[in-house]
């Protein structure tokens, strides 16, 4: 199968039943997407599939044939971080950091769809990404700061 990962096309032999998360982490050594539950509950595995945020643990790799995946490793422009990454640093929307790649990708997808999201839109779009450290107030502020700059 063919998969474009962070702009680079990859040819892969993948068994049926293997998740996209597993391909990213175990085959391509992109460990930014995390396995928090592997049952579509926590969002730590969030990546972008053709720009949409998805749970890569519940997505079969084979179903992504010919499509484009962006992981946290692919959102910065060289050494320059994405505006959402910078906002997460500036607003301390990071504690342990385990959920952070998924949170950032979900926020990027939201801001792509809706550059000026209301508080309700942020709540709706980000509620599928759990954070046990409790960074939610700071995540809201980080996203609003990027939206405000747009």
């Amino acid at each position, binding site marked *: 199968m063919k998969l474009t990962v962070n702009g680079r096309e990859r040819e892969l032999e993948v068994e049926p039943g293997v998740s996209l998360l597993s391909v990213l982490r175990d085959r391509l050594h992109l460990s930014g997407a995390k396995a928090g539950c592997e049952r579509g509950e926590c969002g730590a595995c969030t990546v972008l599939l053709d720009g949409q945020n998805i749970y890569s643990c519940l997505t079969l790799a084979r179903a992504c044939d010919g499509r484009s995946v962006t992981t946290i490793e692919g959102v910065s422009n060289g050494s320059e971080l994405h505006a959402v990454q910078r906002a997460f640093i500036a607003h301390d929307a990071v504690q342990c*950091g385990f959920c952070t790649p998924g949170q950032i990708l979900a926020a990027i997808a939201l801001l792509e769809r809706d550059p000026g999201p209301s508080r309700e839109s942020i709540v709706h779009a980000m509620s599928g990404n759990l954070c046990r450290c409790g960074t939610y107030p700071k995540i809201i502020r980080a996203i609003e700061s990027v939206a405000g700059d747009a």
Partner: protein
Amino acid sequence: MPNEPRKRYVSTIVEVEGRDERKVVETPAFDVPPWSEQEQLGIVGTRATRVDAPTKVAGRATYTSDVTLPGMLHAVLVRAPLGPGRVEQLDVAAARAVPGVVDVITAADLTRPTKLSGILLFDPAILYAGQPVAAVCAESREAAAAGAAALAPVVPSSRPVLDPLVKAANDDADVVERGDVERGLREANVVVRREYRTPSQLHTALEPHGAVAQYDGDRLTIWESTQGVFRVRDEVARALSMPRSAVRVLMDYMGGGFGAKNHAGPHTIAAALFAQRTGRPVRCVLDREGEQIDTGHRPATVQQVTLGARQDGRLTAIIADTWVALGAGGWEGGPAQIFHQMYSCPNVRTTERFAYTHSQPMQAFRGPGHTEGAFALERALDTAAQELGIDPLEIRLRNFAARDELKDREFSSNNLRRCYAEAAERFGWTTRESRRTAASSPTARRGFGMAAQVWPAGGGPPAHATLTMHSDGTAEVLSGTQDLGTGARTILAQIAAESLGARLADVRVVIGDTERTPYAGNSWGSMTTPSVGPAVRMASVDARGKMLEAAAELLECHPDDLDARDSRISTRDGARSITFAEVMKRIGNVMIAGHGTRGPNEQKLGLMSFGAQFAEVEVDSETGHVRVLRIVAAHDVGRVINPTLAESQLEGGILQGLGFALFEERMLDAASGLPLNPTMHDYKIPTLADTPEIEAWCVGTVDARANHLGARGLAEPPVIPTAPAIANAVADALGVDLTEIPLTPWRVLAAQQRRRQQSPS
């Protein structure tokens, strides 16, 4: 800076989460002058961004489950399907026959019998459903899982005992009593008697427990997601009968802990044994179900509380008879202590009965004991206030504890009244009635509540640090502590930069390595800042002295005429200066290092953090649904090293308290003991949609008697008062009594039903 000779080792009392331990500790080689309230600090106290945030947002932080080594095998634990009972069948041959399976470990394969959290590892005698009975390792995780399925343990089980009241009915109680509670009750004008219940709460860190082990013939290296690298080292060394010095434990980044990751677990020992037996690296990371059913919990409690109060609200008696459902093991952490230390009362009696029930062992969960006790105490106090017609804030002020009445000692500092005042002001406590009618629908009811908190957070020895200057003029701080996500790396860098006179960007903090970093204890008990922080400051002061001496030689002046700031050393008149980089370059590749030690605390002094939280809620009187609109929190933790990180800690604690108040409850099937909600779908933790407006801050004070930083701990305090503040607000909204959390719609509606039956309208 050395002083007159002093005794290098002294015996002292160290308090961890309220428990006193006597230890012999190293005394600091010289006195570090305390940072006073007036101290002009340029880095400590600022809102520096988290030093490791760039690594984390880029997805480059390496967590244990990201450690991948060549030829690595994958291990899984095999769990008893039911309990209690005895493993009657375990088909090791079938597991070994599964393609890809490399090795299987059962109790017979252990180096020696090993107890973890009070449970014998892989013991065929099963105490609870989910207890590990074996481990399988294989070329892939899938093959290991297939091998585990083939083992198919059979455990004929009997009915589990889960109710702490049944299990501990005849057990000895831990009784702590002072004064005469019976006399206190006779002196009371009002007596409140209630039975409160709190649920078993699961830590639910996003990163499950896990270990990667590598064995090279006589040395073992373990990467572990842990709050205590040295403790894990000691436990692994013991289990494998290896010298401690032959085991190295590493922890760089971890995805949360909250108390569940203080020890080596079955996964650690399994990974280590497999690595030793196969000669290949082994990774063993729990799946989510394993994480939820077998890594610890905040034990459920039953608390029968009696409060006596005079007409003016002053407490005359507090009685708390408590039962704690520990599970099959863990340590005996109960709710009693807060009943003794939160308020002033001459007559207090608490009993704790610890019930060893047929479920997973407990582990400390953020603010253990106090969080459970605060719910009962603060609900009972609100009920007394209501019966006396006294405002909830007023009754707390009237019972303010100016000293530690339990241990008959002073507090190092106590600004709880300032917390009450600042938070009440910001919340609009006195004007709250004007907001009651602002409810968003005809069935919605607005309510207001508050609660307070006390927590031992002084830290203490032992903790050590070194600071080494690199030849490029940057500094490296080494200390064997951990950063769970709290920001320890950042605040230690701030303390070091401030004390050394360096730019923050020139300081790197290296933690979590039993081989390369000096000893520091577990990151528990809100201890890291007040324990490791002073050691880091001392190491930095030591190194700074040496830098100034080297610079004095280069600048041809006396070290006393020099000062260091922004990684530059200048004469006090500003005429001459030299950068750290230049000093290090000119003196060549020599070592400038400082060593720091955490000295003992002043004895007979209560080192406590305090706080007050106010909650505004809206409750739907038809559905019983509770929405928390706002939490206002003010905490007294002494000097704040970084206000932004402190606020993040407060917000995180408040959100875990909100989950405890509203929906977090581990459910077990009464007949089988099977966990009914072992997933994050069925066990709810707060999402962003549950997040209220949170205004949380630390009142600006310096605790000069606590240590030479003036700082106490703050990680655990914020979780303690949140649930009672919310419950008090819900009770206020509906005019009901609430004695059990979480406040599910069902419980809220039942409380309304009880009220209607009591006073038909």
